[in-house]
C-alpha cells in the first residue's frame, strides 16, 4: 500500500497542496495552492532582479542628463531589497518542505486506515497540541525581518566599499570588495595603528572597570554588613544615589568638574596646596579619570548584588567556622568569598562584556578625547564602540565601522562563552572543594 505515500509525495513536490487535495484535505490543499500561486507571482517578478542586485549592487548610478536627475540604482536599497527577497525565498522553501512532509505523513496514515483530519480538526489539533509553536511563529518572523535581517545587512557592509567620500549612493555605486576592509584595518598602517591601540585600551578598560567596580562593591557591601555599623539603611541609600542619577546628567557634570583649569576638583587640589592634574587632557590621566568615575557609577550595582548574596549565606557555616576557631579573615576567604564568587560569576561576565561596550561612560565623560595625533578619528580613551560611532556618524566610513563592529562582536562572544563555560556555576560542580 505504498502508493498513497509516494503519490502524495510526488504530487506535492509538483505543486504545493496537490498532495493534500489527493489526501482529501481540500481546504488545506487550497491554502497551500494559494501560497504557491502568490509565491510564483512574487518571485517571478523579483527573484531575478534580487539575485542580479545582490551580485552587482546596481550598475547605473543616479545621473544628471541635460540638467535632469535620472534615478539610477541605489546600491544600499538594492542590497536590502535583495536580502528581503532571498529571506522570503528561504521561508518559501521551508514551507515547501513542510508541505511535502505533511502530505507524505497524512498518506501514511491513510494507508494505515486512519481518516485524514478535516480542516476543523486540523485547526483544533494545532490549537491543542501545537499552540506554542504556532503562536511563536509571528514573533519569529518579526525577529527575522526586524533583527536578523538588519544584522545580516550590516555584516554585509563590511565586505563593500560603502564609505565617504567616493562611494556614497545615490550618485555613486558601491561594490563588493571581499576582505579588503579587514585587510586595511589590520595591515594598513594608518588604520592598524589605531585599531590595535584602541583594542588594547578597550581590553584594559574592560578588565579594570569590571574588577574595580566589583571589588569596590564587595568592600562596601562587607563594610556595611559588619556588626556594629549603625544606620545601615542610610549608608545604602547614600551609596545608591550615583546609580540613581541618569548618567547623561552625572557624567556631563563630572566632565566639567574635572576640567583641568576651571574644574572644582583641581581648584580644591590647588587650594590644599597639591599640584593640579591634567584629568582629561593627558592621555594617561584621562584613562585614570574614566576608571575612577566609572567606579563611582558602577560600585552601587555590585554593592546591591553582593548584599543580596550575603543574606543567602547560611549562618551555620559561620558558626561552624567559629567553632573551628577561624579568624575573621579566614571566614571571609573560605566561606564568604567563594560563595559570593560562585553566585555572581555569570553576572561578572555579563558586566565584563557590557564594559567592553560601555559607550556612555566614555562618550559622555571624554568623548574619547584627548586626541592622539597619529590615530585615525580616535582619541586616547576611545573604546572600539565609540570609535565605531565616530566612524559612522562623523566620517561616514560605514564599511570600516561594520568591520570594527564584527570584530567587537567576535571578541565579546568568544570572551563570554569561554569564561562562562569555565565558571563553576555553569559546570554545576560542588561549590567548595
Amino acid at each position, binding site marked *: 500500500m505504498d502508493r498513497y505515500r509516494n503519490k502524495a509525495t510526488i504530487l506535492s513536490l509538483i505543486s504545493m497542496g496537490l498532495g493534500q487535495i489527493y489526501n482529501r484535505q481540500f481546504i488545506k490543499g487550497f491554502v497551500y495552492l494559494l501560497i504557491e500561486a502568490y509565491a510564483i507571482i512574487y518571485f517571478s517578478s523579483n527573484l531575478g532582479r534580487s539575485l542580479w542586485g545582490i551580485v552587482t549592487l546596481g550598475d547605473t548610478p543616479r545621473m544628471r542628463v541635460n540638467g535632469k536627475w535620472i534615478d539610477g540604482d541605489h546600491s544600499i*536599497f538594492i542590497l536590502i531589497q535583495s536580502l528581503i527577497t532571498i529571506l*522570503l525565498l528561504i521561508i518559501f522553501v521551508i514551507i515547501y518542505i513542510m508541505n511535502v512532509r505533511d502530505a507524505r505523513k497524512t498518506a501514511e496514515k491513510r494507508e494505515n486506515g486512519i481518516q485524514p483530519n478535516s480542516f476543523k480538526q486540523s485547526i483544533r489539533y494545532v490549537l491543542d497540541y501545537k499552540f506554542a509553536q504556532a503562536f511563536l511563529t509571528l514573533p519569529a518572523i518579526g525577529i527575522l525581518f526586524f533583527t536578523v535581517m538588519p544584522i545580516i545587512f550590516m555584516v554585509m557592509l563590511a565586505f563593500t566599499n560603502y564609505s565617504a567620500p567616493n562611494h556614497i549612493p545615490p550618485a555613486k555605486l558601491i561594490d563588493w570588495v571581499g576582505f579588503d576592509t579587514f585587510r586595511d584595518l589590520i595591515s594598513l598602517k594608518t588604520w592598524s595603528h589605531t585599531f590595535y591601540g584602541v583594542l588594547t585600551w578597550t581590553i584594559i578598560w574592560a578588565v579594570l572597570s569590571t574588577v574595580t567596580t566589583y571589588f569596590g562593591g564587595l568592600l562596601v557591601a562587607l563594610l556595611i554588613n559588619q556588626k556594629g555599623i549603625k544606620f545601615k539603611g542610610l549608608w545604602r541609600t547614600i551609596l545608591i544615589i550615583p546609580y540613581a542619577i541618569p548618567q547623561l546628567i552625572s557624567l556631563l557634570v563630572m566632565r566639567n568638574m574635572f576640567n583641568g583649569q576651571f574644574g572644582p576638583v583641581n581648584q580644591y587640589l590647588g587650594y590644599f596646596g597639591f599640584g593640579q592634574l591634567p584629568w582629561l587632557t593627558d592621555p594617561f590621566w584621562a584613562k585614570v579619570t574614566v576608571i575612577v568615575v566609572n567606579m563611582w557609577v558602577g560600585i552601587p550595582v555590585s554593592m546591591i548584588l553582593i548584599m543580596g548574596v550575603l543574606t543567602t549565606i547560611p549562618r551555620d557555616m559561620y558558626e561552624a567556622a567559629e567553632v573551628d576557631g577561624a579568624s575573621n579573615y579566614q571566614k571571609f576567604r573560605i566561606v564568604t568569598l567563594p560563595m559570593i564568587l560562585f553566585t555572581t560569576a555569570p553576572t561578572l561576565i555579563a558586566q565584563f562584556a557590557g564594559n567592553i561596550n560601555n559607550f556612555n561612560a566614555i562618550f559622555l565623560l571624554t568623548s574619547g578625547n584627548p586626541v592622539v595625533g597619529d590615530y585615525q578619528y580616535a582619541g586616547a580613551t576611545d573604546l572600539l564602540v565609540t570609535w565605531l560611532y565616530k566612524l559612522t556618524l562623523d566620517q561616514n566610513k560605514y564599511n570600516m565601522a561594520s568591520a570594527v563592529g564584527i570584530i567587537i562582536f567576535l571578541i565579546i562572544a568568544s570572551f563570554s562563552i569561554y569564561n562562562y563555560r569555565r565558571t563553576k556555576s555553569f559546570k554545576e560542580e560542588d561549590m567548595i572543594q
Partner: protein
Amino acid sequence: MKMKKMLMLCATVTLAFSITACGSNEVKNNATPEASNTTTETAAPEEVIADGALQPEEGATLTVWESKEERTFTDEMAKQFEEKYGIPVKVEEVQATDQVTKLTQDGPSGLAADIVMFPHDNLGRAAEAGLLLTNEALAKETIANNTPASIQGVTFNGELYGYPRAAETYALFYNKELVKEAPKSFDDVIEFSKTFTDKSKNRYGIMWEPGNLYFNYPFIATGGGYIFGDNGTNKEDIGINSAGALVGLQTYVKLKAALPIKSADITSDIKRSLFNAGDVAMDITGPWELAGYKEALGDKLGIAPIPTIDGKPAISLSGIKAWYVNSFTQYPNAAQLFAEFASTKEAQLLLNEKVGSIPTNNEALASDQIKSDPFVSGFAQQVINSQPMPTIPEMGNIWSPVNAAFPEIWDNGKDPKEAMDKAVQQIKDLNGGATK
C-alpha cells in the same frame, strides 16, 4: 506533526505579504524608475516663464531644515512665504553641520527636507553625491545680487548650487574696559597679556579655541600657508605644513604665554562665561556669540579685525551659509522659489536683525542697517581679508587630523613641522588608500 503547520502558514503568509508590500514598494520607488511617478525626474523645470518667474507646483508643501540658533528667522520666512504663495512650509531643526550627513541618509528615501542650509565647505560632498539641484532658473539674480566671494563659495565644479544668505568669519571681540584699543598685532597681544594673564586667578589676556583649525587658520594662511592649493581645488597639494604656514605657527606657539591652558580645557561655554565676566579680555570668535556678548557687556564690547601676524593682516577662514535645494524634492519649483525668497536683500537684513549675521547681498551690505552697526562692520572688515573654505569633498578629511595636530603642538610642545607633516600624511592616506 500532522496539521501543526496550519496556523504557522497563515501567519507566515500574512506577514510576508505585509513585509514585502511595504518593504519592496518603498524601495522600488527609489530603485526602479518605472515604479514611481514622483521621484523619477526631479529636474530644473523647463516651464520657466520669460521673465524668469517660476510657477510653484499645485498642492506643494515644503519642509526646511534650519539650525536651532537661526530658527526664528526661518520661522518668519516660512510665514511670509505662505502668505505670498499659499504654500505651507514646515521648519525642522537640524544642526547646520549635520545637514549633509542627514541628507545623504534621508534624501534618497524621500524623508529629507526640500530645502537645506549648510556652510559651504560641505558643498562638495553633497554635490558629488548628487543630492542637490543646481541653481539655474534663478542663477542670474543670485549672481547679480551677491558678492563674488559668496558666489565662489556656493559654486562647485563650475556650477552654481546655492542661494547665499550670510557670510561668516570670526574676528576679535574685546572688552574695552580691559583693553583700551584693539591690539594691532599678536605681539601686542602677548605684551598686554604679560600684564593681565594670571593663571591662578583664571584671568587671561586672550582666549580662542587653540585646538581648532577653523580659528587657527590665520596662523597658517597669513604667512602663505593654505589648506588645498589652487584656490582650494587641488586635493594633492596640502599646504598646512608649507614654509609659510610654519612661520605663522611660530606666533601660535608664542601665544602659549598669553593663554597657558591645555586646549581641551577651553570649551566655548567656559570661554563665553569668562569673557562675559570680564576675566578674558579678548576672544576670537564668530558672529554667533554677538547677541550674548552685547547683552553681557553692552557698550564695553568692541570688535576689531584679527591682529596682524608678522606684520601681515591676518587671513581668516570664511564660511558662506546658503540655502540649497534637495534634488529628491517633489516640488522643485516651489523649493527654488523658497530658497530665492529666503535669500533676498530683505531676508538677509532680517537675518542680520535676528542673529547679527553678515549679509552677502550687495544692496544689503550697503544699507544703513549694516553700515551703522559697528559690530557687523567690524566683521565686514575681516571678511575682506578672509578666504572661503575649500568646497572639494576631501575637505571632510581635513578636520580630524589637523584638529589632532594642534593640541599636540599646544599641549605637548611638539614641533609644529613634525605635527603638521603627520597630519598631511594622514589626510593623504584618507584621500587615497585608506578610504578606498
